[in-house]
């Protein structure tokens, strides 16, 4: 008969309606699956007792089943071209987005939207490879839980953009998993710790995985998790430490450049030496290579620390930045959570302890923390716990906004806003009778659209003709719980609407995000100047348009030739400055605008008088007795 688990009071499921849900940590190097058993989250192991599934897939040829995990990892040196690892780096990426293509021994084929890899089983894209990993975890979980899964929570780095999140969801669907929600990895780690230990306060999540480093500052209070800031380095991880040992082996033995097979072999040895050094003072490295050359070395912990000192230091730079973004000092951090197998290295732990002036939390296995947190969240979402006990808030990593006149970026959702979120702002038309508006959605911190990243465009058509500035167009930006953005625009008087769901084909790398932020800080002053310039140019153009329209209509009627000449002169002077004035023309622009305003003052007054006369013609004073004065 079926085996039962203990449920929370009042929540035991009816037969055949168990809502089995798992949490999956789909990692660059290793992946895990966890679930809640009788109220306690734990990692599900395979038949051999392994919790970690190496995120490695080997394709054996057309029709054959892909090999996933340890077995694939073991064959990495024998069959490097068909054995795919670190595929997470390629999720939702085009070939030109991937920085270290030359370091990967694969036959890349650039396809629209996402890179693919030529293997013996045909062309594989990162979504398919990730799906093979997820499918293996799903089967493992179903074997352990004894039934089909209701759903899964899958974790992604906080920095993953829309394209990467979408790719992750697609992979899950391909693997036969129902995605309950994508959850940011640091938030999952916080869930695992925050609830088990019922802690409150500000925490730092220091996540050094196989290939990526992420630091997140989270605030936990009354069961609400808020990500205050995130930062990181997408190309820093345990692999880099392996590379240092590998380079050291080559340098020490004066080996020529090894074959791909030997290189893999040596890298595997480097990794196990690194792991040994987390608990031992020295590690032996012995191997016989394809060239029959044998290696016999000993690496001491001291030497290892020396080889990797700069890598350790590199984790602290983004950490400092994240703290600054959150507006906090080291003394505000109540605890530091270590995530990722690489945080087992004693030099990392020491560096973290020194930086934060406190020993980091290590109660939970750093490899399992994220999966366990995801499992706890999945359990809530599947309805196995009373739902509203906790709420999860994440943030968007870069500001989102749209393009306004003059190529300026107007931010609608500021950076680090908790998500899900929806914000609306009203915009209006620039020209008389304007019936369409192009909404250009951009992401970034800079003031100019050309310095931000374009996410998508759409048009709002059918705006009723009105004078410039009279239309009320409400633009709403909405980010859902998975971090996906939708934008809609609605003209208030007519109710016409247009919307777009943003799924950019190319994503942003962490370092691009970091770079964009850096530029935003260093370019802040220049940006402000340019914004002022553009704003004045837009104002100038509006003035020219209005003056020209008025001249065409009433110029003959109200202006003497010299007056008209003076206005035209000012008009041309202003147009000249707009067209040819450089970046320093703000002052000149203002002067020219003022001059034109001055020149047209009498003209404007006469037009006003005339229109008032027209309106009053044939009416008696008594008709206006009850009219209220309108404030100027």
């Amino acid at each position, binding site marked *: *008969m*079926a*085996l*039962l*688990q*203990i*449920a*929370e*009071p*009042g*929540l*035991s499921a*009816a*037969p*055949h309606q168990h809502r089995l849900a798992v949490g999956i940590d789909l990692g660059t190097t290793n992946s895990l699956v966890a679930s809640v*058993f*009788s*109220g*306690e989250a734990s990692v*599900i*192991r*395979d*038949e051999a007792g392994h919790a970690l599934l190496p995120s490695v897939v080997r394709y054996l040829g057309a029709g054959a089943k892909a090999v996933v995990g340890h077995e694939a990892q073991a064959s990495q040196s024998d069959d490097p071209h068909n054995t795919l690892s670190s595929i997470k780096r390629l999720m939702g990426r085009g070939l030109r987005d991937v920085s270290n293509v030359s370091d990967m021994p694969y036959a890349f084929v650039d396809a629209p939207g996402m890179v693919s890899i030529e293997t013996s089983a045909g062309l594989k894209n990162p979504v398919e490879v990730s799906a093979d990993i997820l499918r293996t975890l799903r089967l*493992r979980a179903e*074997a*352990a*839980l*004894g039934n089909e899964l209701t759903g899964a929570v899958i974790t992604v780095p906080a920095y993953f953009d829309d394209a990467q999140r979408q790719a992750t969801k697609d992979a899950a669907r391909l693997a036969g998993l129902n995605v309950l929600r994508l959850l940011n990895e640091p938030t999952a780690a916080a869930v695992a710790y925050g609830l088990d230990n019922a802690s409150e306060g500000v925490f730092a999540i220091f996540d050094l995985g196989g290939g990526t480093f992420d630091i997140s500052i989270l605030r936990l209070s009354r069961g609400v998790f808020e990500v205050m800031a995130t930062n990181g380095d997408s190309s820093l991880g345990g692999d880099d430490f392996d590379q240092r040992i590998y380079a050291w082996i080559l340098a020490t033995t004066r080996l020529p450049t090894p074959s791909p097979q030997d290189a893999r072999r040596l890298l595997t040895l480097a990794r196990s030496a690194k792991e040994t050094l987390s608990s031992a003072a020295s590690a032996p490295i012995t191997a016989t290579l394809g060239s029959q050359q044998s290696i016999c070395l000993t690496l001491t912990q001291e030497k290892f620390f020396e080889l990797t000192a700069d890598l350790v230091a590199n984790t602290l730079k983004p950490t400092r930045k994240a703290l600054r973004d959150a507006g906090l000092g080291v003394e505000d951090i109540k605890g530091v959570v270590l995530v990722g197998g690489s945080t087992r290295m004693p030099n990392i732990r020491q560096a973290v302890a020194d930086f934060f002036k406190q020993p980091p939390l290590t109660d939970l296995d750093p490899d399992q923390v994220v999966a366990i947190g995801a499992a706890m969240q999945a359990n809530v979402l599947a309805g196995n716990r009373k739902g509203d006990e906790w709420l999860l808030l994440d943030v968007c990593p870069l500001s989102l906004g749209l393009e306004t006149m003059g190529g300026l970026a107007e931010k609608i959702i500021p950076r680090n806003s908790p998500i899900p979120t929806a914000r609306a702002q009203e915009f209006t038309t620039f020209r008389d009778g304007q019936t369409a508006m192009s909404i250009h959605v951009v992401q970034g911190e800079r003031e100019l659209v050309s310095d931000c990243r374009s996410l998508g465009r759409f048009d709002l058509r059918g705006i009723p003709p009105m004078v410039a500035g009279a239309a009320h167009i409400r633009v709403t930006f909405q980010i859902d719980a998975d971090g996906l953005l939708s934008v809609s625009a609605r003209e208030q008087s007519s109710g016409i609407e247009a919307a777009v769901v943003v799924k950019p084909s190319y994503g942003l790398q962490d370092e691009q995000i970091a770079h964009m932020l850096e530029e935003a800080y260093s370019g802040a002053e220049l940006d402000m100047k340019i914004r002022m310039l553009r704003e004045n140019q837009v104002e100038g153009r509006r003035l020219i348009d209005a003056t020209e329209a008025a001249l065409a209509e009433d110029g003959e009627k109200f202006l003497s030739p010299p007056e008209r000449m003076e206005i035209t002169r000012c008009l041309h002077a202003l147009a000249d400055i707009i067209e040819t004035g450089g970046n320093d023309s703000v002052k000149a622009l203002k002067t020219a605008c003022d001059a034109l305003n001055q020149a047209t003052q009498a003209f404007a007054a006469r037009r006003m008088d005339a229109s008032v006369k027209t309106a009053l013609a044939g009416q008696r004073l008594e008709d206006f007795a009850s009219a209220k004065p309108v404030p100027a």
Partner: protein
Amino acid sequence: MGVTLTESAAKRVQTFLAKRGGIGLRVAVKTSGCSGMAYALEFADAADKDDLHFESHGVTVLIDPKSLPYINGTELDFVREGLNEGFKFNNPNVKNECGCGESFAV
């Protein structure tokens, strides 16, 4: 009679209770499922005034009087079947069970 726990089941329950808190384990029968009856196994945070209390290997087992006849004499075991592990009811009252064993008839 009542319901008893095997030593391994009791140990497991005690581990859970130590972590989670709660006064014991509630065993009940619900009228649902493809063969008429289904087991419910829950943590107990409080006892109802009609509850029957049983003690087995240091674990308090709470049963409401209406459920007792269906499960009187049951031994609750904790077993591992392959990767799957969980609690198993050895209920002498059962005449019929659905294929999966999640529900039963007496």
